[in-house]
């Protein structure tokens, strides 16, 4: 993977250098607009605003954030797809933009955008009430095997639900996957014992974990989390399910190579910035840089898998 990145970056550098030797280091536009469909204070909004604080010097351009809400991202995608591919505008990608594309068939879909690079993975964890009898993931699965399990996912069309459905299939148990209107709702139902487990991002339940009211059982990430080294992954527990809730950027189709190269370099630098690192690790985000080529494939695969899941669960035809 790394080799691939170096080759492409080198190729891009050569190309850029060949075109304009004197401006090899300069970003082609003065101001970069980062767009999110989430409203101020929402997940992607906070991600972009934090990022814009640190990114400018590494990228060599001003970075501003714009909220284009409406249609769960459909409007932002339409605007991006029609914008010039000169590196002046990008869109914050989360699984939502794939779900929206698949669910509502908007005029412009995720396939009309070009993924740029990935920044983070939000680890998804399985948790239970600290008062419950369940000490490990196996306890929960056994409970579902003996009778009927009740597992919670934050939203109906979400990665969390997909993860639980996969876990259900992998373990072969009969559990009801109960969907909610957000993580908060679900957490109450885990705390009051209506559900055995819930799935969510660490950040959402951090305070409850610190207060000792929730217990973590497993993480859906591919490796153990730095913040919780004792927490096993789902895969270690014997169920081959890995979930990657990505956070990255995408732009209009046909991004020039120099723009891509500039972003690949700047992303790695900004992720290593000690101050930024402190901020994002405090928010329980895991840096997972993916260069352009990998990210394009990753999004493609993610899209196909999600479409399969939605078809299988009867959400779309």
């Amino acid at each position, binding site marked *: 993977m790394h080799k691939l990145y170096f080759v492409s970056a080198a190729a891009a550098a050569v190309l850029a250098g060949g075109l304009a030797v004197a401006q090899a280091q300069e970003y082609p536009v003065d101001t970069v607009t980062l767009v999110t469909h989430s*409203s*101020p*204070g*929402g997940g992607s*909004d*906070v991600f972009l*605003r934090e990022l814009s604080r640190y990114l400018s010097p590494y990228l060599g351009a001003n970075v501003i954030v714009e909220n284009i*809400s*409406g*249609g*769960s991202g*459909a*409007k932002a995608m339409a605007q991006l797809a029609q914008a010039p591919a000169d590196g002046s505008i990008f869109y914050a990608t989360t699984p939502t933009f794939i779900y*929206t594309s698949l*669910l*509502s*068939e*908007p005029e412009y879909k995720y396939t009309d955008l070009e993924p740029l690079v990935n920044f983070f993975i939000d680890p998804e964890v399985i948790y239970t009430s600290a008062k419950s009898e369940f000490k490990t993931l196996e306890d929960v699965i056994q409970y579902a095997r003996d009778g*009927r399990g*009740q597992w919670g996912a934050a*939203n*109906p*069309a*979400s990665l969390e*639900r997909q993860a639980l459905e996969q876990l259900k299939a992998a373990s072969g148990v009969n559990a*009801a*996957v*109960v*969907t*909610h*209107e957000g993580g*908060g*709702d679900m*957490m*109450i*139902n885990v*705390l*009051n014992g*209506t*559900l055995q487990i819930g799935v969510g991002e660490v*950040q*959402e339940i*951090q*305070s*409850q974990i*610190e*207060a000792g*009211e929730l217990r973590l059982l497993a993480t859906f990430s591919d490796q153990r989390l730095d913040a919780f080294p004792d927490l096993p992954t789902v895969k270690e527990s014997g169920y081959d399910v890995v979930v990657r809730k990505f956070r990255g950027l995408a732009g209009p189709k046909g991004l020039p190579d120099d723009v891509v190269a500039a972003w690949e370099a700047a992303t790695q630098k900004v992720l290593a910035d000690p101050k930024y690192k402190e901020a994002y690790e*405090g928010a329980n985000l895991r840096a997972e840089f993916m260069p352009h080529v990998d990210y394009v494939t990753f999004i493609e695969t993610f899209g196909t898998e999600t479409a399969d899941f939605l078809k299988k*669960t*009867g*959400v*779309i035809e």
Partner: protein
Amino acid sequence: METLTHTAAFLFDWHVILAALIGVTWGIMGGALPGISPSITMALLLPFTYTLDPTSAIVLLASTYIGAEYGGSVPAILIRTPGTNAAAATVIDGYEMNRQGKAGLALGISLYSGVIGSLFGLAMLMTLSGPLAKVALAFTPMAYFALGILGLSVIATLSGENLVKGLIAAILGLIIATIGSDPVTGGTRFTFGSAELLGGIEPVMIMVGLFAMSELLVQASKREQDERVTSRPRIQFPDWPLAKRLIPAQIIGNGIGTFEGVMPGAGGTIASFMSYNEARRWSRHPEEFGKGSPEGIAAPETANNTVAETALVPLLSFGIPGSNSTAILLGGFLIHGIVPGPMLFQKSGEVVYGLYAGLFTAAIGQLLIGMAMLPVCIWLVNRPRPYLNAFIFALILSGIYSIHNEAFDLGIMIAAGMLGFFMRMLRFPFLPTVLGLVLGYLVESNFRRSLVLSGDDWMIFVDDRISLGLLILAFLFIGGSIAKRIYDLVRHRPTSTFSESAES
């Protein structure tokens, strides 16, 4: 006691005072603009809080919420348009009082009831957060379903003289509530491939259409010069006998507001409607309701301001936002690296005490700023009708447009306006539609969620004690009002129910 002394220390912190006053002023203005909901008003301020210290930032946002919940009643009374969802119940008697030339008194009642609601809610928040949080925790999906049914039981009273028309109107609201994403499977329903409809139709669009747009259409369809009501541009507070009469209504508002505020997802709209209904049930003058009863303003306005305070209980105790507005507030906390939840008091206690002090200042500020702003508003609505109508039309169009910056939403609002126009011609009441719209999703999603939990076993609603209790209460309400109708019918007495859309 400890809480009080800690809080008192912040009462004279000028950062907190300033943030509270700016917030409440901004909130009243945002709330008073139809279409601009409390959460949008707060969201507009959010970017400015990045540079503030955490306490000021949180105080600013929370004060905005309080101001907006109050501000919604101003257009409800003056131009028959609820500025916020929770002000829909205030329209009924508020606008009626305005038509009788008592706009100043109506605004005075809503203002001082709002302040009472804020102060009472704050007292609950400061003293009873712990026990109230336990109540919220005990609410399962089954209990939420029953709570929604209890809310819907109010339809029987809101239906006016014709129960069938009321039920039809309510079903219309329930139908509109099904548009969007299926709450359990996530599939799309009645969206016809439109991404704009994926998130459902915001109740505010329908409400503004039904109330304000239809009123404009009615005005425009009148040939003759409309009768002009001129009220003196002065805000008037009730005298002692009237104030005494309002006390029971305000107590009802406080009680229901506290309870509903604590439930994530229930919120101010249900609280105002239920308070209105209960105030009517227990009033000594139930016949005045719908014809400009001051209690009909006091109860819902006390309730929605109480909700604005107690809605902070689940946010501060669990980190769970119960509404869009508290979700923005949660964003405000997270921006400053503070995570609300069980550890909040240990880790950032001073922010909480600062918040309490700010909320107190905001409640007082609400009174002062309301008094300064209202005469201007009354003056505005006393302008000649054609100008006023053009102004209202511009106001609601821009308000609705600003929700998502979508022209599509304007179409929804205007369609609702035409629907409202015909509903008025056929004398269908609006309020059941609004109630159905607001509660439809809550009832449906929790009903289906419960059945997923139980594996389609209906006994789950009986096994859950809270659910059972609320359902029994709802059936008693429904049974009671039907029995009363039959009794009135047999005795050939005119029903003492009212029609809120009575055109005189």
